[in-house]
């Protein structure tokens, strides 16, 4: 995959390192000459010095052949315009903008650009992690609108001993997989849940809390 990242700072550095370690080709556009020198010494990425919202710079950086464009500068207006130029002018299939101001996530989406806010993601993660220690794993997907949650059923769980169809799940919740003694089961309505089962739930974010409560009990 060819990833084009516009921005700087620690987020860019570690994202870039993560992508290159996974074998992706990374191109960076950065506005500071000094940082460009530093980045090109530290990372195995192509570094282009310039304004990422300039069509000439984008073209030079090979935006035409990029699979993803990530715009993570500290200025929301730049991130929006970079993503719009990438998709309209260079037909990049996916472009994602960082919304420094969480209010801008909604605005960007209405203007046709996928956006994420680190404030949103981190605060959501902290809330969810802090509230329930039985949760082993949590993964936000679909720009944070969907959660994949892995949890272990405790003996006091209200659903233990019941077949799935009798649980009365809240809406927009799917029990994707049950891991029992290391055997994965894709459950059907008649399957009975047991204490110690590790279950993987897929939920919409707004129903996440009620779903977790249904499986772990509200006594938590």
């Amino acid at each position, binding site marked *: 995959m060819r990833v084009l990242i516009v921005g700087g700072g620690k987020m860019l550095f570690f994202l870039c390192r993560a992508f290159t370690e996974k074998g992706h080709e990374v191109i960076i556009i950065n506005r500071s000459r000094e940082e460009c020198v530093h980045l090109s010494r530290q990372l195995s990425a192509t570094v282009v010095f310039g304004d990422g919202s300039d069509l000439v710079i984008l073209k030079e950086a090979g935006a035409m052949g990029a699979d993803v464009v990530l715009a993570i500068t500290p200025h929301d207006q730049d991130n929006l315009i970079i993503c*719009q130029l990438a998709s309209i002018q260079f037909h990049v299939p996916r472009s994602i903008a960082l919304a420094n101001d969480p209010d801008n996530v909604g605005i960007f989406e209405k203007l046709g650009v996928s956006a994420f806010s680190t404030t949103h993601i981190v605060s959501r993660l902290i809330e969810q992690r802090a509230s329930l220690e039985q949760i082993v794993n949590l993964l936000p997907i679909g720009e944070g609108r969907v959660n994949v949650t892995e949890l272990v059923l405790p003996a006091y769980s209200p659903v233990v001993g019941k077949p799935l169809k009798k649980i009365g799940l809240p809406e927009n919740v799917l029990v994707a997989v049950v891991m029992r003694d290391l055997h994965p089961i894709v459950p059907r309505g008649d399957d009975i849940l047991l204490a110690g089962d590790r279950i993987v739930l897929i939920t919409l974010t707004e129903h996440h809390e009620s779903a977790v409560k249904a499986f772990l009990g509200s006594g938590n």
Partner: protein
Amino acid sequence: MILKRLSRKTFDMEKNLYIVIVGCGRLGSLLANQLSQKGHSVLVIDPSEDAFNNLSPGFSGFRIPGDASQLTILKEAKLEKADVFFATTQSDNVNLMVAQVARKLFQVPQVLARIEDPKREDVFNRLGIETICPTSVGAELFLLSVASGRSLRENR
């Protein structure tokens, strides 16, 4: 082409309009002063209070100090009631962002963005944002003057 469009439209503003202008620099304040003197309700937004010094003593409109790329400021400006929206800051990206927000989120009927980099004009025209590039307009005037062999003032 741009000039023709301008001369047809600009002076045909008889009824009282609510006009929101982002940026109170040379261009923004010039527009604000003239439109206010013609009797329109004008509101100017600029992050720097000093910029409002560019407004003439005769300016009777409103001013909001703040960053127009924040939604709260545009809400405060009652953008949903605006007839015309001008984005005139020195940053192309700010202008293009707030112009899109004005057009798509607040459905302002007429939205114009100043843009310094003519390369980007095309892309944003395709997004339904009308842009004016002072550099292109200036160049067009220069060329026109050369082509006619006379000064533009004599032409009128």
